[in-house]
């Protein structure tokens, strides 16, 4: 296959880029129940279906629970399956998310991150996908429109290699509705990259030797299945690295498990997800010009958690702030904070770690907000004490 490192830019929103990626993948089945702010993914994709540009069977269902149920049925039958949702939609899928992962079905779901009610809100935060973090889905988080598009292709490969469902997350409105410069990949090169899907087993694969999927297991076997699922999740980390490396080699855009920025000699850093990373990088550049050694670590892969890599990236730092766009309501910091803090526990001279909850329900997170967190961290280093371990900011 010819490598394609195109610099030809076009302007697409996150939603239209994901819909285009789905068109280029041409999945067998797409069960969907559109919800803001991911609506345009399914709206645009349904036009591709109506215009005969894909062969996909689009199943319009009556709820997200049914969307995931139909995805599970189709994937069990051996189909390549994709769908998209947000917020309450993901929450309504919750029961079925565990069945998709437990049955080891490589479904790819784009989740456009949106706050959960109540109070009702359509804007961005990460409480929806954070709520699904223990559901056995691989979770990839995307900083830009370009990365959202690229992650969808990689998600297909990762899912089918480790036989686990993959969730690609991008920020509602901030990424889903923003036009940014991005490069697309040709249809032929997409097809070459994702390849033909030939599951080892499926309900329809060999009618002479029928199989059951989803049979009852008692204490004799349930735990065995779970151990295999856990091992698959551990293996997924290496597969994400391999697939990302192949993608970089073919298309020239590099993605790691983590994205480190100015961390090598940093004293303090912010750890964060998705679109707010870029805003934080601008703050890093401005503070570096003033002589402050600050950096940022973006978590691209959150499930499985690259805990050893996180520890390696934060080794040698003096203070770290984990910025969560979701609250665990545990009176002990957000989900990212707890997992990053736990990841670095075995480091000698580990940095002090603080939790800052920001940007809930679409509240803007500006360069100044990142700068004030860095200022707090520098003060922690100077005084050696953490005054407030957990705090809401941007409020």
């Amino acid at each position, binding site marked *: 296959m010819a490598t394609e490192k195109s610099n030809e830019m076009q302007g697409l929103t996150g939603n239209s880029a994901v819909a285009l990626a789905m068109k280029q993948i041409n999945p067998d089945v797409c069960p969907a129940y559109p919800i803001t702010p991911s609506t345009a993914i399914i709206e645009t994709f349904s036009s591709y279906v109506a215009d005969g540009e894909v062969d996909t069977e689009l199943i319009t269902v009556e709820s997200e629970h049914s969307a995931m149920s139909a995805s599970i049925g189709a994937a069990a039958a051996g189909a390549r399956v994709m769908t998209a949702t947000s917020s309450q939609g993901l929450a309504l899928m919750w029961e079925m998310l565990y069945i998709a992962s437990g049955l080891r079905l490589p479904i790819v779901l784009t989740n456009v991150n949106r706050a959960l009610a109540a109070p009702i809100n359509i804007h961005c935060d990460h409480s929806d996908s954070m709520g699904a973090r223990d559901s056995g889905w691989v979770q990839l988080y995307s900083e830009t429109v370009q990365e959202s598009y690229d992650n969808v292709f990689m998600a297909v490969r990762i899912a089918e290699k480790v036989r686990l469902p993959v969730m690609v997350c991008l920020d509602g409105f901030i990424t889903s509705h923003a036009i940014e*410069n991005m490069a697309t990949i040709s249809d032929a090169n997409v097809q070459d990259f994702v390849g033909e899907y030939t599951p080892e087993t499926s309900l329809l694969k060999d009618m002479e030797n029928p199989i059951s999927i989803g049979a009852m297991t008692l204490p004799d076997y349930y735990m065995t299945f779970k151990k295999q699922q856990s091992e698959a999740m551990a293996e997924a980390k290496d597969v994400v690295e391999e697939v990302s490396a192949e993608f970089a080699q073919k298309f020239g855009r590099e993605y790691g498990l983590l994205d480190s920025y100015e961390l090598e000699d940093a004293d303090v850093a912010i750890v964060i997800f998705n679109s707010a990373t870029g805003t934080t990088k601008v703050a890093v550049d401005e503070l570096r010009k003033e002589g402050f050694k600050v950096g940022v670590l973006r978590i691209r892969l959150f499930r499985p958690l690259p805990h050893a890599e996180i520890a390696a990236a934060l080794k040698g730092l003096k203070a770290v702030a984990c910025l969560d766009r979701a609250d665990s309501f545990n009176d002990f910091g957000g989900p990212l904070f707890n997992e990053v803090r736990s990841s670095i526990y075995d480091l000698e001279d580990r940095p002090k770690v603080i939790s800052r909850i920001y940007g809930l329900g*679409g509240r803007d997170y*500006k360069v100044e907000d990142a700068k004030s967190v860095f200022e707090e961290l520098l003060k922690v280093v100077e005084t050696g004490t953490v005054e407030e371990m957990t705090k809401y900011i941007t409020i």
Partner: protein
Amino acid sequence: MLEVRWHGRAQQGVVTAAKVLGETCLRTGKYVQAFPEFGPERMGAPVKAYNRVSDEPIRMHCSVTNPGFVLIADPTLIGIALAGGMESSGGVTEGATEDAVFIVNTPKSPAEMRTALELDGKPAKVFTVDASQISIDKIGRHIPNTPMLGALAKATGMITLEDLMDDFKVNYSKKYSEAVINGNLEAMKSGYEGISEG
């Protein structure tokens, strides 16, 4: 980096205007962002949209708070505090840079608008264009976005009228009929020619 803020009411096309501006700048080799700020989704509700335009990749993903260019598609939004959207926010001049360029859709003079915007004696530039009348004349509907784009090209040189019209033809010919495309192209041209500075 240039930062632009659009003010209008839902259905006046400011989100599309930001989109067309972004696409036009992108086609001339710039890095761009174009994004809306939706509040309650109903006709007539105040809507904002934003652009960033730069020679370098744009990494920040926050709202534009200090625009150098402010386009007001609906003059009834002047002088009122705008609730809603991602955050409650002040009026149309809030956060604008000292030397910002304001373009207002109104049949009134730039001097009257300068006073209405409380910018008398300040270095900001104020332009007016009767985009509503142009859109009714050229498109047959009250959608002032394309004449505002033409006015922006004339007032700032951020884009050329030719690039704007080329982009619109290329990107929207599939979506709209030839009559609608031509009406909008004429509206852009009339907006370009019909702007007043004061």
